């Protein structure tokens, strides 16, 4: 089995390995998720109905409001959080939420991260090193 390493800007939170869930759409915990059921609930979202719990979520940019800064911590407390979040561009809210919750987050990759990873692939996210390793 081969592996690809994708570099990005060093991120926040501990290293983690999990299965990827990928879409060319954006991310806001308040706008997009049913956090009780652990699924995407926004009708217009590309991942509507999909469970994100324990997945490395790979999406385009952070959108929406400030609530996500608390919500990552809240979802983690119920074991209903994603494993990590990879974005082409984060915003301050996602970074603040990741710092508060010690949640793995990375952005600003050498390539478009949504094109580089497919749903179902196992990926290892190492925010301190600024690397994502994809098991092809």
């Amino acid at each position: 089995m081969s592996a690809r390493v994708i570099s990005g800007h060093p991120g926040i939170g501990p290293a983690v390995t999990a299965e990827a869930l990928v879409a060319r759409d954006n991310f806001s915990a308040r706008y997009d998720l049913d956090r009780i059921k652990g699924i995407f609930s926004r009708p217009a979202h590309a991942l509507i109905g999909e469970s994100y719990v324990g997945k490395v979520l790979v999406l385009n940019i952070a959108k929406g409001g400030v609530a996500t800064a608390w919500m990552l911590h809240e979802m983690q407390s119920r074991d209903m959080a994603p494993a990590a979040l990879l974005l082409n561009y984060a915003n301050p809210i996602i970074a603040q939420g990741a710092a508060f919750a010690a949640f793995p987050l990375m952005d600003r990759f050498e390539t478009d991260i949504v094109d580089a990873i497919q749903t179902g692939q196992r990926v290892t996210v190492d925010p301190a090193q600024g690397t994502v390793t994809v098991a092809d």
Partner: protein
Amino acid sequence: MRLNDQEQAILAGEMGAIRQRALEQQIQIGDFFDAEDFVEVRQAHIMADTESLGEAGVAWLEEVATAPEAERRVLIPTITDPRGADFNAYQRINHDEAYVTLEKRADVAFRALGVLMTDTCINYQITMPPVLGEHLAMGDTGVVIYSNSVQGARTNYEGGPSALAAALTGRTPRYGFHLNEMRRGRTLIHVTDRPRELDQWGALGGLVGRMMGSYWEVPVIAGIEAPPTSDELKHFGAALASFGSTALFHMVGTTPEAPDLETVFDGEPPERSAIIGADELSAFTEAYAPADDKLDVVVFAAPQLSLIEMEALALLLKGRAVAGDVACLIATAPEVKHAADRMGLTAMMEDAGAIVLEGVCFYQMHARELGEANGWTRLMTNSAKLTNIIGGYGYEPTLASMAACVESACAGRIVR
């Protein structure tokens, strides 16, 4: 990040473990965005409704509140965004008592930290308006975009834990919209038809927001000849921030950093441009057109209503009657509610059957559970921001003018 003597002292724990932890988190965020140092801030605004906090967040706040007062008290004026329950009115809308109890616990914890419970997202209209060049740590996207754009103050989106960290350390990492070079215009939007009603200003904000490629893109609006009112800019900015995750816009001839196109683009050409006219505004609203005229709840909120909006709404509702099977909710700031009580506006609205809520906003008060408890699905509002948010909570929103919303509430069905 470079730390000065005071910051090094905080990091060493000389001002207590709470401020130390806060600064450690801020350094992580600063490193993430390549901040070189900190900037002192003069006001913080915390978004911390219990729907976002959850039990875990409230328990964390309560733990912070047990520290000695010298270690837990905020260092700068710190105010709050709308809360998750109206303690005086929750029973009128079947709001679950468990959420109200959680909200009360958060309220007690915040007071112990010296936070001023303003419970508002329109602080710039009623509390202490930010001023040009002032560095701040504001939560609520609508507050950030208004402070940055209309008032020329300098803040990033500061989510709850981050705004609280800034309040506890008196500073925030200097990145993003604290920096001159990040504030210049990037994208030019020509507006050919001036929006008229507040919902149309929101629609314009939504259209621009959808175009934005990231938090860092700064749109410049041209073609608005006479300055809009504060409420018009409020709805425009709130929708732009909500649809776009946008923290700063410039409006040529209106906002303080945009006297003309050359200044706002700092001599560089726009990276891209677009034209928005009446057709685009209509299409935006039409996309929320309902399949039929069924109506459950009419909501005036997001942002909370100013006293001027409260008066306009009271005059529309005066002598009317909201249909028995429709709820009509109006959310405003506590200070505005008190003024509206004193001026007889609340009575005009409530005599018609509307419910005036204070210190809350609809989507921040467990909207999904409220919908289930009351059988609300079809929602009508004049807030483009709310239409963007509330779909994820199980509602089908329709966007219309304030007058059309009132007509519909009274007719018991959607009238457009």
